[in-house]
C-alpha cells in the first residue's frame, strides 16, 4: 500500500514546527501505524535525513506511550492505540496527517513526542494508597465484592495515554482523573484516603492548567480502553463528599483525613 503523509516536524519545545510531506510505498496492509512510521524513517535515514521522533514502547496497546493525532483524531480512527491501528484501516493512496497532541498542558518535546508529566503529577497528588512495606497480609482477609472489583478494574485499565485530553475541546483531563479516583475509591484499600484523593487530584488537575468537563463525551469516544464518562460522574460525587468532609473537619466536627 502507498500513502502520502503530512508529518509534524519540530526540533524542540521552543522552536517553530510545521508539516513535512512524505510518501511511503510498499507498506504491508498488516503493518501497524507505528511500523509504517519505522518504514518511513528507514527511508528518511537512507536519504540522509533526520528520522521522525515518536513515542512507543509496548507495541501491544497497553503502555499508552504514543501521542499521535492521526487525521486530527487521537490515536487514529478506530478507538485503539496507534500501534493497534493498522494500515489496512486506511484506503490505499490515502493522504494522512500525523501530529502530536495539541494541548498547551502537553508541550511538544520533539516532532511527535509530547511531555505528559502533568498526568504523572495528578497521580502524585493522590493516585496511590499509603501502605507500609513489610510482611503482606493474607489476601483473603480483605474480601472485595466481585462487582466492586470489576468496577475498579474497568477504571484501572486506564493507560494514561492522554487521548482524552487531546480529544476534549476544553483540554480537560477529567476522564483520566476520574478513572484514577474511581479505581482506588471503589476498593477497601483506597477507602481510608478517598476524600483526600478526590480533593488532591482535582486540585492538581486545575493546577496543571487543564480545562473543565462540559460533558461533551469526546474523551470516551477516543479512549482506547473504552472508559466511560461515568467515572467523571463518580468523581463529582466523591469530590462533593470530600468538600463536605473538609468543611466538617475545619469546624472540628470530624477528623481530617
Amino acid at each position: 500500500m502507498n500513502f502520502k503523509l503530512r508529518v509534524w516536524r519540530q526540533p524542540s519545545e521552543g522552536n517553530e514546527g510545521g508539516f513535512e510531506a512524505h510518501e511511503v510505498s510498499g507498506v504491508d496492509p498488516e503493518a501497524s501505524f507505528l511500523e509504517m512510521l519505522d518504514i518511513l524513517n528507514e527511508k528518511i535515514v537512507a536519504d540522509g535525513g533526520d528520522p521522525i521522533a515518536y513515542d512507543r514502547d509496548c507495541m501491544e496497546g497497553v503502555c499508552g506511550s504514543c501521542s499521535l493525532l492521526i487525521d486530527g483524531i487521537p490515536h487514529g480512527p478506530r478507538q485503539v492505540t496507534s500501534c493497534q491501528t493498522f494500515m489496512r484501516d486506511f484506503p490505499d493512496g490515502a493522504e494522512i496527517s500525523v501530529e502530536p497532541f495539541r494541548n498547551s498542558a502537553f508541550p511538544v518535546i520533539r516532532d511527535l513526542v509530547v511531555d505528559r508529566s502533568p498526568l504523572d503529577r495528578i497521580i502524585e497528588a493522590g493516585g496511590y494508597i499509603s501502605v507500609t512495606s513489610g510482611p503482606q497480609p493474607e489476601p483473603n482477609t480483605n474480601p472485595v465484592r466481585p462487582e466492586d472489583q470489576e468496577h475498579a478494574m474497568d477504571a484501572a485499565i486506564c493507560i494514561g495515554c492522554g487521548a482524552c485530553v487531546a480529544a476534549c475541546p476544553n483540554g480537560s483531563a477529567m476522564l483520566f482523573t476520574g478513572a484514577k479516583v474511581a479505581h482506588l475509591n471503589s476498593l477497601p484499600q483506597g477507602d481510608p484516603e478517598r476524600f483526600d484523593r478526590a480533593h488532591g487530584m482535582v486540585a492538581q488537575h486545575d493546577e496543571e492548567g487543564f480545562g473543565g468537563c462540559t460533558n461533551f463525551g469526546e474523551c470516551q469516544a477516543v479512549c482506547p480502553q473504552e472508559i466511560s464518562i461515568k467515572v467523571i460522574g463518580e468523581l463529582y460525587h466523591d469530590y462533593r463528599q470530600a468538600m463536605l468532609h473538609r468543611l466538617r473537619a475545619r469546624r472540628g466536627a470530624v477528623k481530617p483525613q
Partner: protein
Amino acid sequence: MSSEAPSLAGAEGSAQQPRLRWLREVWDSSLGKKIFVATTGVILAAYVILHALGNLKALQGPNSGGEASIDEYAHFLRTVGGPAIPEEGVLWIIRLILIAALAIHVVGVMQLVKRNRAARPSKRPPVIERSLASRTMALSGVLLLAFIVFHILQFTTLTIHPTPLAEGEIYANVYGAFQEWWIVAIYLIAVAFLFLHLRHALWSLLQTLGWDKPNRNPTFRRGATATAALVCIAFASVPILCFSGVLPEPDDGPTAAQVATTGAAP
C-alpha cells in the same frame, strides 16, 4: 496524604470564617464552580418548568363573562400570602432568588469558559460524539439571556409595546402580541434555543451533582431530552395557537383606543 495541615489553615487569614474560606476553595476549583453553576441551573430550570406549566392557563382562553384564567392566575401570584405578606411579596422573593441564581450561573460559566478556552488544544478537535446541544451551550445561553431581557421588558414592565399592552390583562396582551408574525418568530426561536440549552443542561447537572449512576445514564439522557421537549412544547403552544387563531380572541382586549394610555404608562 496527611492533608489539612493545621498550619496551612492558621497561617493565612485566621480572621476569615472557616466556612467562607471553604466556600472560596470550592468556588476556585473548576469542579466546585461547576457545582455552583449546576445548583443555580436547577433553580432556573425549576422556574422555567413552573413558568411553562403556568402558561398552559392561557390555553383555557378567556373565561366567559369573567376574567381569563391566566389573568386570575397572575392575580393569584401577585396577592398570594396576603394579608400576612404584602402584595407582590412572594413574587419579589422569587424574583430575587432568580436574579441571584442567574448572576451566579452566568459569572460562574464565564469564568469556566475562560479557563476552558485557555486549555483548549491549539487545533480544535474534530467532532466525534459531542452533540449540537453541547456545542452551542454558550451561544444558546447568551441568546436566552438577551431574550429574557426582551421578554421582561415586554410582558412584565410593558416597556416595549409594539402591540397594545395593558397591566393585568395577561391574556389580551399575549394574544395581541402574538398576532405579529415577528414576535411569534422571536419567541419560537428562543424556545428552540431553550430546548437545546435544557437538553444538555438537565442531563449534565445530574452528572455534575454526582447523582448520576452508571447504569442510569441512558435513562437520564432520554429523561432530559423528554423534559426539555415537553417544556418547550408547552412554551411554543401559546404563540402558535394565538397566531393561528385556534385560541379565541380576548373578550375585552386592549383596543386601538387603549394604545395611547399604555403608551403613557411606565
